[in-house]
């Protein structure tokens, strides 16, 4: 029997996380806006790149410049963080710091929310759309927060936090489902394995998607006059690489999701593959991302084309979640033999 008061506290935690995320969004927005240089815009275009190309200035050996076909987006490496740090306006730095702290706070609040929800229903909290969305948001925030400790991702903050806020908003309203026990077919350890990995994978694909979109926008704006805040964002090629690095973690996880789902389908439905709409879309997503990795490895296919395929992959994820779950007739009822 679900414990309704615990579920109420879980919702409260989600609402608080949303409030915190709203502030974080503002902080990241201020960060990007504040960076606009007072006169001209020559100051800042170097710093973010230095994060992406390893700099050797710190080692005991001395270095001189070398080869390389560094383009406009790939400035010399030697300019390490200290060189540009003074150019970073204090307001911007403060805003980003606040944004990051708030992101951590929201992550913790959401973790509490997910934990309370699980406690209230006495099971793994991944049984319906509300729970997927909440857990997925937590995964996105956690990945971002931990990753941001390892490299400067302050420019990415708003593109992560704002979409998460939107998803949480949907989770707590349209997708809201009361805390309850599961239908028999969902009572399985494979729920824990399959759905958890799927959610983490989607979280990584999601951040990868944000980066992929940014890289296309950044490329486009590099040729036209780009808005000043864009100077905070790394170059298109660097963004594309970052997106790729996330996708190659997410793709094996998704492959695992597919396999685990098939094992579970055999346990619960008697056959490991039934071409149920949900299965079809899991497979479609897999094939599209496989095509993305392929495209990226194929000589003669541009990075931009590959990026578009990755974006199509994430749109399939969105369809799988928001459309297939709700509208398509699938193997969800166990009332009788058909």
């Amino acid at each position: 029997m679900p414990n309704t008061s615990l579920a109420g506290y879980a919702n409260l935690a989600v609402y608080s996380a949303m409030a915190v995320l709203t502030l974080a969004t503002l902080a990241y927005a201020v960060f990007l806006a504040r960076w606009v240089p007072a006169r001209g815009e020559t100051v800042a275009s170097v710093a973010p790149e230095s994060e992406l190309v390893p700099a050797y200035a710190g080692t005991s050996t001395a270095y001189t410049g070398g080869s390389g076909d560094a383009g406009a987006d790939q400035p010399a490496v030697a300019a390490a963080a200290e060189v540009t740090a003074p150019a970073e306006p204090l307001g911007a730095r403060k805003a980003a710091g606040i944004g990051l702290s708030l992101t951590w706070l929201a992550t913790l609040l959401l973790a509490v929310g997910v934990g309370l929800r699980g406690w209230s229903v006495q099971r793994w909290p991944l049984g319906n759309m509300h729970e997927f969305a909440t857990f997925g948001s937590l995964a996105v925030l956690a990945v971002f927060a931990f990753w941001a400790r390892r490299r400067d991702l302050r420019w990415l903050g708003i593109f992560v936090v704002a979409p998460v806020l939107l998803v949480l908003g949907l989770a707590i309203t349209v997708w809201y489902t009361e805390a309850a026990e599961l239908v028999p077919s969902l009572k399985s350890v494979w729920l824990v394995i399959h759905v958890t990995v799927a959610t983490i994978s989607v979280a990584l694909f999601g951040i990868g998607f944000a980066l992929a979109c940014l890289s296309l926008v950044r490329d486009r704006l590099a040729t036209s006059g780009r808005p000043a805040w864009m100077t905070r964002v790394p170059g298109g090629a660097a963004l594309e690489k970052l997106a790729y690095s996330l996708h190659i973690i997410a793709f094996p996880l998704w492959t695992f999701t597919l396999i685990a789902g098939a094992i579970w389908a055999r346990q619960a439905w008697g056959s490991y593959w039934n071409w149920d709409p949900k299965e079809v879309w899991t497979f479609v997503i897999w094939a599209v991302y496989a095509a993305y990795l392929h495209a990226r490895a194929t000589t003669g296919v541009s990075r931009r084309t590959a990026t578009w395929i990755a974006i199509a992959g994430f749109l399939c994820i969105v369809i799988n979640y928001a459309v297939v779950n709700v509208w398509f007739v699938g193997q969800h009822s166990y009332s009788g033999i058909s």
Partner: protein
Amino acid sequence: MTQVSTPSAAPVPPAPPAAAPPSQPRLGLLGWLRFSWRQLTSMRTALVLLLLLALGAVPGSTFPQRSLDATRTARWIEDHPTAGPWLDRLGFFEVYASPWFSAIYLLLFISLIGCVIPRTRILLHQLRATPPRTPKRLERLPAHVAVEVDGEAEEVLEGARKALRAKRYRVHSHGPGTLSAEKGYAKEAGNLLFHLALIGVIVGVASGYLFGWRGDVILPVGQTFANTLIRYDTFSPGPWVDPSALAPYTLRLDEMEATFESRIQSKGQFGAARDFVASTTFTPADGSPSRAEEITVNGPLETGGGTVFLLGNGYAPKITVRDGSGTVVYSEATPFLTVDNLYKSTGAIKVQGPKGDLGFSGFFLPTGIIDDQGPRSVFPDALDPALALTVFEGRIFTSSAPQSVYSLDTTGLTQLTSAGGDPLRIWLKLGQTYELPGGRGSITFDSLDRYAGFSIRADPGKTLTLVSSLLSLAGLVASLVIRRRRVFVRVTDTGPRRLVTVGGLGQGDDDGITDELADVVARLAPEPAS
């Protein structure tokens, strides 16, 4: 004084496999075949086919599929008189068996084989060969480092060799003063394993289709199922299955337990299924003693000759029909097929009589009400069970064509009517008896049992499919995680000291190669003499 250069942004990609442009003039038949083969096995084609595969799979989720739900498919076609038949002709209701979908995946797998075999050969060759010669100008490589050290040339080279070996490189010297090293062959091996294992998955799926079978059976509580063809309600064998060779085990259903949500009132939750447990007595085919087995939704029973899954359940009301003289002419637990989540169920009772047969058809409702929506169930558990039936008279058992036991074919039958001339409608609660008009006898709803809907399936291909997919995953991870790198070393004299130049080449995006070189150099000259 030492020097290290920075890497360029994009390492030169290694030559693509099998990317030679086809020769232009005068192809001839053989030439054309070779040309088509090369096109088919190019990575670009594989890419297009992969995207087509994804696209082709989509209609199977948007249109009802005959193999999954024939009734809904038929209804869809009926509701769309123009588009329906056309889409049907194009295979949109059997997407995964359609010629075009098959064409896509067959081409993809031919392409895959054609691609993997030469790549395997190349890899095997590379494994036997030594790393390539040191290029003349190492500073042309995407990453390179130069460092001056003390010591004899031989010593320095030996140090470099050690450093590279420690980093698990295969090292070879093609000439004095140079070293060639390579590592990460496992990346390509993993990639090949990934692709090869996909073929294993396909073979596993295909053998499951050829040698697998499934049958469904509805078993009321108290009855025993013997695993023979005749006992199945439906049986679908693969093309290469001998259905007479089923393992002769038996399974008795002792109890069918079903629990539903009754505490949470919100929509979608109230009445939702919570737990189904079928308690059975299983007698294996090999003569070992019977044992009690619980079969649940996520807990199938392995019988040694197919796996028994609990895929459904429902109600089998025990109904007794008496003729005009009071003699019992029918008394059976009659399963009704569940049609919705609230267990509204349809069924039929067919009674053979000397003068004419009687047929009852209609609904069973576990918690039944009648309102302006007609008879319906408001809760899936048997809180207030009711039968809503209509009655027909005539010859039911005439035609030799097999009939469904769950429905009554009313053609040629006359429906009984009430005094007012309306069709006669019977509403029976548990324990009640209804007297049929005109001295035809009576019908009694005696008691209520549940039944279990078992699906028994065998899939001999599943182990191959599973093992292949796990191997594929392992190969994928290896292919994405491992780095393939080549490192070259040249030692030359600069007056009293030695100049060591190290160049590196990574495959694909390899930002880490500069770190790698720096590390090699650091091992050479732990304390740079600057």
